[in-house]
């Protein structure tokens, strides 16, 4: 794939006319998927695809596109040339774009990591027998993911990595569930079987008779996976500079009214894990670490070069949508082993589900509790709870009601596949809240 991208890049960029600028991006994957229901195979298959993205600029106008590639160089060069010519024709007809940014990054990088993945035809036998009689439903994804970028200024980046994930739910006959994700780059059968067995053990707690709690405000612990869901909301009407400037951000109150979150809350865009590429679609390389919220204060936002040009500010080479690509939340001092004792009496939430802004400008999020969520009394788990709806503002539960943050940040891999397999990982600890509003 790298050879294909490099050859298309070299050819197209050499064929540009005067005053034309072009940034190319590449996205691709060779993936295996197995959908599992009741510890049996529901659907299984491979997806092999590659796309070439264009950001074409001429005479103050800009147009972008994406085409499918076939992995045959001659065919793909034909497709790419046709697309470039189409863009030339279309761009002429468009109005001037005052905020376009001519790609000028000359940086280069190559990052290729190889893993050890199970052969596709061995997958069912490696995955399923150790599930035994447990009701397990989930998705296996594995294979190689490719990202590339090149531009007419000479910049070039290539990123390729192997990875696998088994994202699954374990379900009791009473329909109580535990969620887990086994992910990595090098398959280890014994390690997988131990991980699976450990998660099955967690299911034992779910056999306790469930407790129906009433709507109200509760002391609450949200584990790392649930916190990752909350942090994902910061990529939608959150840390984007453009969203704040255009009055479509929950953090507008921090910028414009001096609102603050808790001193326990720190959030950064932090690429040091190396799990996600630092370059964006224009080939611009983000700083290794950009602290966004420092001890509750909004200190920076994600700023794309386009936004920077529009508002006359400095870019930090965010992606076009100014969403988080490598979110890392700062740890606190609460020892994981002290969570239940410190919670005392309240609810313990392992996961959240279906979050949405119920009042974006007010910073209020609604969503559901899901999976292993418990009623805790005097530091002891008493019963799983029936799922509850919450509806609370980040200015409350990440503000004055954020009592403590655990001292361990866990990796929460993004297993979403709407636009192909994701590379993002959210690294975050758990949070203890003095109060959290459960509403239905």
């Amino acid at each position, binding site marked *: 794939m790298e050879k294909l991208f490099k050859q298309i890049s070299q050819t197209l960029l050499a064929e540009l006319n005067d005053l034309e600028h072009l940034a190319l991006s590449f996205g691709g994957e060779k*993936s295996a998927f197995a959908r599992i*229901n009741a510890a049996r*195979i529901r659907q299984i*298959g491979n997806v092999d695809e590659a796309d070439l993205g264009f950001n074409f600029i001429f005479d103050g106008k800009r147009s972008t596109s994406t085409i*499918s590639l076939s992995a045959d160089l001659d065919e793909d060069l034909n497709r790419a040339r046709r697309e470039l010519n189409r863009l030339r024709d279309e761009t002429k007809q468009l109005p001037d774009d005052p905020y376009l940014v001519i790609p000028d990054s000359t940086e280069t990088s190559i990052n290729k990591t190889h893993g050890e993945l199970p052969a*596709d035809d061995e997958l069912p036998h490696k995955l399923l027998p150790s599930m035994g009689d447990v009701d397990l439903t989930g998705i296996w994804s594995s294979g190689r993911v490719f990202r590339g970028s090149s531009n007419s200024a000479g910049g070039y980046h290539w990123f390729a990595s192997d990875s696998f994930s088994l994202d699954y739910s374990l379900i009791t006959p009473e329909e109580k569930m535990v969620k887990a994700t086994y992910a990595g780059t090098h398959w280890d059968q014994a390690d997988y079987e131990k991980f699976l067995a450990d998660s099955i053990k967690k299911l034992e707690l779910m056999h306790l008779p469930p407790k129906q709690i009433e709507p109200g405000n509760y002391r609450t612990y949200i584990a790392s996976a649930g916190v990752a869901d909350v942090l994902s909301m910061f990529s939608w009407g959150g840390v984007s500079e453009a969203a704040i400037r255009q009055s479509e951000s929950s953090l507008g109150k921090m910028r414009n009214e001096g609102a603050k979150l808790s001193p326990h809350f720190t959030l950064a865009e932090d690429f040091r894990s190396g799990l996600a590429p630092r370059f964006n679609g224009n080939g611009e390389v983000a700083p290794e670490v950009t602290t966004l919220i420092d001890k509750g204060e909004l200190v920076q936002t994600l700023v794309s070069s386009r936004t920077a040009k529009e508002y006359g500010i400095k870019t930090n080479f965010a992606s076009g949508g100014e969403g988080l690509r490598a979110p890392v939340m700062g740890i606190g001092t609460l020892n994981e082993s002290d969570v239940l004792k410190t919670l005392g009496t309240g609810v313990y939430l392992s996961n959240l589900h279906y979050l949405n802004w119920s009042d974006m400008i007010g910073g209020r999020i609604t969503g559901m509790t899901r999976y292993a969520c418990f009623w805790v009394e005097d530091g002891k788990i008493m019963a799983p709870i029936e799922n509850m709806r919450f509806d609370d503002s980040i200015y409350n539960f990440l503000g004055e009601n954020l009592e403590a943050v655990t001292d361990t940040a866990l990796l929460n891999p993004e297993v979403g596949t709407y636009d192909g397999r994701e590379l993002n990982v959210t690294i975050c600890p758990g949070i203890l809240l003095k109060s959290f509003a459960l509403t239905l």
Partner: protein
Amino acid sequence: MDLQAILSGIDVPADWVGLRYVKEDTGFRLVRDGKPEENTRESKQGIMVEVLVDGQFAYYGTSRLDAAGIQAAAGQAVVLAKAAAKYSLHSFEADARPLARGSYRSAYKKATEAFSPGEISELLIKSTAELKVSDKVVTTNAMARIVESESHFVSSNGSDFDQQYLMVSADYSAVAQDGSVTQKRTDGGLLAKSYQAGMEVFDEQDVLARCRIIGAEAVELLSAEDCPTGTMDLVLAPDQMMLQIHESVGHALEIDRILGDERNYAGWSFVRPADFGKLQYGSKLMNITFDPTIGNQFASYAFDDGGLKAEKEFLIKDGLLLRGLGGRESQIRSGLDGVANFRASSWNRAPIDRMANLNLEAGESSYDEIIGAVERGVFMTSNRSWSIDDYRNKFQFGCEYGKLIENGKLTRTVKNPNYRAISNPFWRSLKMLGNQDTFEVYGTPFCGKGEPNQAIRVGHASPLCLFDKVELFGGA
């Protein structure tokens, strides 16, 4: 591409082979505050090869379109199917892919050539100017999404059908601000105006008139009081009913969810197989149809991606649950009646049970009769927030714009209108149903489901509805 010739050349030890070629061009243009923000086009094409071996389907989606590449994909799919057959959830036969022949062409009045890229941009720029009705409007957006899609399916048991669509979605929005108060209006919810249609959707006079109303309502909301908190009557406009039907009826009735396929992602369902024919889902006024045959609705088609012929079916009649949203595979697995809704988002995904057009049939009441019947309540329109639990029970939805209803009359405007309820009790509280004059058609390109994930187009239509005693509340 001669798909039949490629199929004939595939030599693999499979009980059934199917090829589904998809080519889709999506153009998207966005103008913000009079300036171009996006002018982009996505042209995707590829082929989904499916095989059936030893009762197990397996697939290989590839963007390689040459015969050798497709043959190799079929060979690899056979390897996967054989490996998985020992662990199959269900052992299928070739009747899971019924014989289908025919074609479908979506209806439109003006072809894409009727507007050049420059002309569409010009209209969008004019639209943002119309949206800015005052200095209090701080951000304006106008967007157009035009999709040209074609698919061709052939199979070893003789299926050969092709379907072509032209689809247009558009939206116009204004964000208004006054001090710390910020409000937004769109054209019925983000891209809710999504249709199988042509460039006739961009009638300039009509678009600009709508933009003036959208801008004015955004400003109007700035000085509105918050939606009252309390249990009272709720009147929902058809553009919000779209979301209500989608989340609390559509997903709940998907048979693959009921069978547990989605339990790790979108979730399960409160509906169980034994409920069909017995569960009183809503009040007697509630009639829900699956109807992929409506001319301009967003998810109309002739065959689903398994080859089942698409026909109108009542899922809920007089409030009674009759039939689920399940394609042939789900029908075989569950023994339940279903519909032709086995759909894939593109060539790179295997089909699963999806909604298509799922509609609430019109009733008898006029707009005035419904509003006149409310002593104290709120009218809400245009979705802005949505969340529901994994069983499709506890939901909370929010709208952009509300009006108090007092003593049978619409009175003051309210901002941040929200409501929450539980699906069955909510639908059983449907006490008045608008007539055909209140019936409106909407759609969305963004229904998410499945592992691996798939976003697909759905259509929903509904009349105005009145619900009794619902929990309402306002903003933060």
